[in-house]
C-alpha cells in the first residue's frame, strides 16, 4: 500500500517535471518574431544572428534540441548568459543557495508568528484579545507583501535604524552583519506565509474544539489540558500542515519580490533581471531550477502528510 502510493507520487512528480521542462524549453520558440533580431537590434549581423539562434536552440529539430538541453542541464551545464557571456551555472548556484537561506528563514519566521497568533486567537476567541488578533490577521492578509516589506524597512531601517535596509554580506567574513541583513527580508517573507497559516490554524483548532471526539474524550474523564494536547492540537495540526505545504510554494514567488525590495542577491533577483534583459538561456535555467525545487518540496510535503495522517494509508 505504502509502496504503491510512493511510486504513484514519484511518477507524478517526475511527469510534472518533464512537462515543465518541456514548456520552459519551448518558451523561447513561442516568442513572437525572431528573438535574435530583437536582441541584436542595430547590431544586427546575419552571421551573429545565426549563431545566436543556435545558442538559443532555435535552429534544428525541436526534440533533439530539447534532449540536448536536458542532458546538459542534468550535468549542471546550462550554457552561457546572453548578457555577460559567462557560464550560467556558476552564477546560478551561489544565488540559489542564498535564496534557499532566505526561504528557510522565511519559513521559520512565518511559523514563529503563525503558531502563537493562530493558537491564541483560537483559545481566546470569546475575548477581546481574540477578535483583536483576528482583525490583525485579516489586515495582514490584505496588505500586499511588498508593502509590508517597505513598511518594515521604513520603520526599522530608516526611522529606528536598528537593522540594515538590505543587501548581503558573506557570513564567513561578517557573520553579524549577514544575520542582521537577513532579518527584515526573512520576516517580510514569513509574514505573508503566516497570515494565511494562522487563520487556518485558528479555524482548525476551533473546529476540533467542538468536534464530537473531543466531547467523547472529555466524557472518558480526560482533563482540559490533556484534551488539548492529545485531541485538539493534534487534529488541528493536520489541515494546518497541509496549508503550510501549499504555502511553501508561495515562498518561491515571494522570494522574487523580497529579493527585489532588499536588493538581496538571490536567484529571484537574477531571474527578474534576466527577464527584463531578455537573457533567455538564463531565464530558462532559473525557471527550471524553480520548477525542480518547487516539485521536490511538494513531494516532500505530500510524503510527510502521508506519514502523519493514518487515514491516507488505507
Amino acid at each position, binding site marked *: 500500500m505504502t509502496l504503491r502510493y510512493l511510486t504513484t507520487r514519484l511518477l507524478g512528480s517526475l511527469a510534472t517535471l518533464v512537462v515543465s521542462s518541456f514548456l520552459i524549453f519551448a518558451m523561447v520558440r513561442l516568442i513572437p518574431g525572431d528573438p535574435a533580431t530583437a536582441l541584436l537590434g542595430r547590431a544586427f549581423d546575419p552571421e551573429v544572428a545565426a549563431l545566436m539562434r543556435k545558442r538559443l536552440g532555435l535552429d534544428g529539430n525541436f526534440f533533439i534540441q530539447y534532449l540536448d538541453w536536458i542532458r546538459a542541464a542534468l550535468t549542471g551545464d546550462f550554457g552561457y548568459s546572453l548578457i555577460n557571456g559567462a557560464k550560467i551555472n556558476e552564477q546560478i548556484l551561489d544565488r540559489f543557495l542564498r535564496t534557499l537561506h532566505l526561504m528557510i528563514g522565511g519559513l521559520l519566521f512565518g511559523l514563529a508568528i503563525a503558531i502563537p497568533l493562530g493558537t491564541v486567537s483560537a483559545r481566546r476567541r470569546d475575548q477581546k484579545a481574540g477578535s483583536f488578533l483576528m482583525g490583525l490577521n485579516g489586515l495582514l492578509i490584505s496588505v500586499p507583501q511588498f508593502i509590508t516589506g517597505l513598511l518594515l524597512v521604513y520603520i526599522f531601517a530608516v526611522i529606528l535604524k536598528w537593522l540594515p535596509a538590505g543587501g548581503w554580506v558573506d557570513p564567513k567574513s561578517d557573520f553579524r552583519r549577514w544575520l542582521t541583513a537577513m532579518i527584515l527580508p526573512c520576516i517580510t517573507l514569513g509574514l505573508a506565509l503566516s497570515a494565511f497559516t494562522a487563520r487556518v490554524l485558528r479555524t482548525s483548532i476551533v473546529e476540533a474544539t467542538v468536534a464530537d*471526539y473531543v*466531547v*467523547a474524550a*472529555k*466524557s*472518558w474523564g480526560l482533563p482540559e489540558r490533556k484534551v488539548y494536547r492529545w485531541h485538539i492540537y493534534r487534529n488541528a495540526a*493536520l489541515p494546518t500542515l497541509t496549508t503550510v505545504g501549499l504555502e511553501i510554494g508561495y515562498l518561491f514567488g515571494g522570494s522574487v519580490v523580497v529579493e527585489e525590495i532588499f536588493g538581496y542577491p538571490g536567484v529571484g533577483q537574477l531571474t527578474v533581471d534576466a527577464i527584463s534583459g531578455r537573457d533567455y538561456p538564463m531565464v530558462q535555467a532559473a525557471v527550471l531550477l524553480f520548477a525542480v525545487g518547487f516539485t521536490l518540496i511538494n513531494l516532500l510535503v505530500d510524503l510527510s502528510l502521508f506519514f502523519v*495522517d*493514518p487515514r491516507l494509508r*488505507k
Partner: protein
Amino acid sequence: MSDSNGNGLQSAIEVQHLTVTYRGRRGAPAVLDANLEVPRKEIVGIVGQSGSGKSTLGMAVAGLLDPRQCEVSGTMRLGGTSIDLGSTENSVWETLRGSRIGYVFQDAQAALNPLLTVEQLLVQPQRHRGVDLSAARSIAREMLEAVEIPDVERRLRQYPHELSGGMKQRAVIAAALIGKPGVLIADEPTTALDVTLQAQIIRLLKRLKDEFELSIIFISHDIDLVADIASHIVVMKDGVVIEAGSADSVVRKPSHPYTNELIRSIPRLEKVGFFQDTEFWSSRG
C-alpha cells in the same frame, strides 16, 4: 419511583429539577424541570422525538454541555453525594466523568479521534488516573473482549476508520466503561445501526449491565426498543417529562395522549394470510 418489586431502594442516580436553556435563543428551554431516578442495576429508558430534549438531558447529567452555549440548573444525587448540575467547575466534573458516569455516543464514528489507535484511545483516560502503561494496556484488552470484539490484538493497533460500524460502537462502549463507572448514559447507541446489529448491541448492554453492575439511562426515539430493554420508562416532549413509570404500565396503560401516539405509531407486523404454503405479513400502522 421504586423498583420493579415496589421496594424503595437507594437509587444509583437521582436528577432533580433539571432545566437547560440555550443561551441567546428565545423560546422554550430545551429541558424544563425534569426529574429522573434510576434504581440500582436497572435500566431507565428516556423516550421522545428529536427535539424533545432527551439527548440534552443525558448530556447535562454527564456534564458534557458547553457552558458557553447552555445554561444549566438543577441537582443530581450520585451515590450519596449531591452535585450541582449547573456547576462549571471543571475539577468537579473531571472526577465524575469516566469513573462515575460513562457516556455512549450515538455517532460512534465521530466519537473516535481518527488520528489515534484504539489502544491509545482506551489507554489515555486510564493513564490520567495514574494507571501504569502495561496495566492500562491489559485493561484495554480485557475491555475489548468484554464488548465482544473478536481478534482483539489486531483491533487494538487499528485506527477507527478501519473498524466496521458495529465494532466502532462496541469500541465506544468499551471506552465509556473503561473507568468502571457505576452509571452509563447511552444516547441512541443503536440508531445508526441496522436491525441485526441493534439486537446484538442491546444484548451486549444487558450483559454488561450484569457483569459490571451498571445502572443505565437508555435514550432513544424508539419506544419499542426501549420497552424491550428498560424496566422504567420516562417520556419526554418539548423538554418536559410528560410520563414516567414502569415499562409495563407506560406501554400498556399510558396516561398521556402523546405516549399513546408514540406507541401507536410503531409499525407492527401482523400475519394477514396464508397462500400456497407461504405466510403473508403486512404492517399495521
